[in-house]
């Protein structure tokens, strides 16, 4: 019953964006939208996805606000884009409104049909076997790190590729930042003092999420995102570009290689059944924790590079 109220709030916050044409407002509405959607994920029984969405929403707002700040900074050359009401209703009269109504009716027709007993075979198989096969208590982590390692590997590869693309597609293609160069953002002394207290808490909590990923909700991605938010706070405290992006990129690629090596070693060890069964749970636990730590480090490095590129280069 509570979930219906949350769903209705979700749809209302989505409708805000449709009827708005100013970019700052749209970004704030989008932040609210992703906050509410992550809560709905949580109450649908998907804690890992909810945590990832909560971390992602902070980064999307940061990326968009950097671009939009630049957009309004160069305001002199821009003709204001506002949808006039007449123009909007002219668009409504066209093909869109009947299309949307037909689509909605179609959806209603499909979901009022009797339930055709969805097969739960895979769910039961995973849930009953993962404790003996993989170890740990979190089924999602077991699927991510053992049953479907290839997914995770290619996802990590896509993150590496996107970091490379962001570095090489931008207008400023060289990756050198003038060391020790202060930025224009000024924070008050009180904010700096308080953020200094908060920063170690964020890093500690990220480490907790990473190490406890196989027992409770959390895991490599969520912990990595939490560690990456630490770098945002660090930027807001010191206002300085003093880490070379090249070294972090090399570190990220090295960690990616070690993820691949670790998973290959684990697959071959498991296939050969060389290990005595008495030590198997220990090795399983070590594998899960190591994989989580590596993935967390990699995600933290990747998002740190993305944030740094945006704040140092794309903002100009």
């Amino acid at each position, binding site marked *: 019953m509570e979930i219906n109220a949350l769903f209705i709030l979700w749809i209302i916050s989505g409708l805000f964006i449709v009827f708005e044409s100013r970019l700052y407002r749209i970004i704030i509405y989008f932040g609210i939208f992703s906050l509410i959607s992550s809560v709905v994920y949580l109450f649908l029984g998907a804690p890992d996805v909810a945590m990832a969405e909560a971390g992602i929403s902070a980064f999307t707002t940061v990326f968009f606000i950097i671009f939009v700040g630049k957009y309004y900074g160069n305001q002199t050359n821009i003709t*204001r884009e506002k949808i006039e009401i007449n123009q909007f209703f002219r668009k409504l009269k066209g093909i869109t409104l009947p299309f949307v109504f037909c689509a909605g009716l179609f959806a209603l027709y499909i979901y009022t049909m009797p339930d055709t007993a969805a097969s739960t075979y895979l769910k039961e198989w995973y849930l009953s076997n993962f404790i003996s096969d993989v170890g740990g208590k979190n089924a999602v982590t077991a699927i991510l790190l053992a049953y479907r390692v290839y997914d995770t590997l290619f996802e990590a590869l896509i993150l590496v590729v996107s970091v490379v693309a962001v570095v090489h597609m931008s207008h400023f293609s060289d990756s050198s930042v003038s060391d020790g160069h202060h930025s224009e953002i000024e*924070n008050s002394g009180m904010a700096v003092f308080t953020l200094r207290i*908060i920063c170690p808490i964020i890093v500690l909590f990220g480490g907790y999420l990473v190490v406890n990923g196989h027992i409770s909700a959390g895991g490599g991605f969520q912990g990595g995102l939490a560690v990456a938010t630490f770098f945002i706070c660090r930027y807001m405290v010191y206002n300085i570009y003093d880490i070379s992006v090249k070294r972090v990129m090399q570190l990220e690629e090295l960690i990616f290689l070690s993820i691949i090596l670790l998973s290959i070693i684990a697959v071959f060890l498991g296939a050969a059944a060389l290990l005595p069964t008495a030590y198997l749970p220990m090795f399983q636990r070590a594998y899960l924790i190591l994989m989580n730590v590596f993935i967390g480090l990699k995600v933290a490095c990747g998002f740190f590079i993305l944030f740094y590129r945006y704040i140092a280069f794309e903002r100009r």
Partner: protein
Amino acid sequence: MDIQSIQYLIGNIVISIGIAFMVFGVFGIFLLKDFYPRILVASKIDTVGMFTLIMGFVIRHGISFFSGKLMLIIIIMLILNPLVAHIMARSAYLSGYEVAETEIDDGERETTLKEN
């Protein structure tokens, strides 16, 4: 009356006090007509309301792992909530919100209230 029912009673009373604070915050947000009084009321009352409400839950659960985590949340909220309010008010002040007829970043022409 055993100890647990007394705990629950006190906890419920404290929780309802916190809820009352939050409802005052809603009234403040809708009745006041300028941004600075609004953020004053919202941040102060919301921080106090959060503190009281979570303390109520701590009292309900007694000494356990659950209430330990709640205490951590209380500490984080007590640090962060005033900080966010401070930074927002500072950004509004630095952008020249007080000055009449300034062009706000939103792309609108805004006029602040003239009355006092």
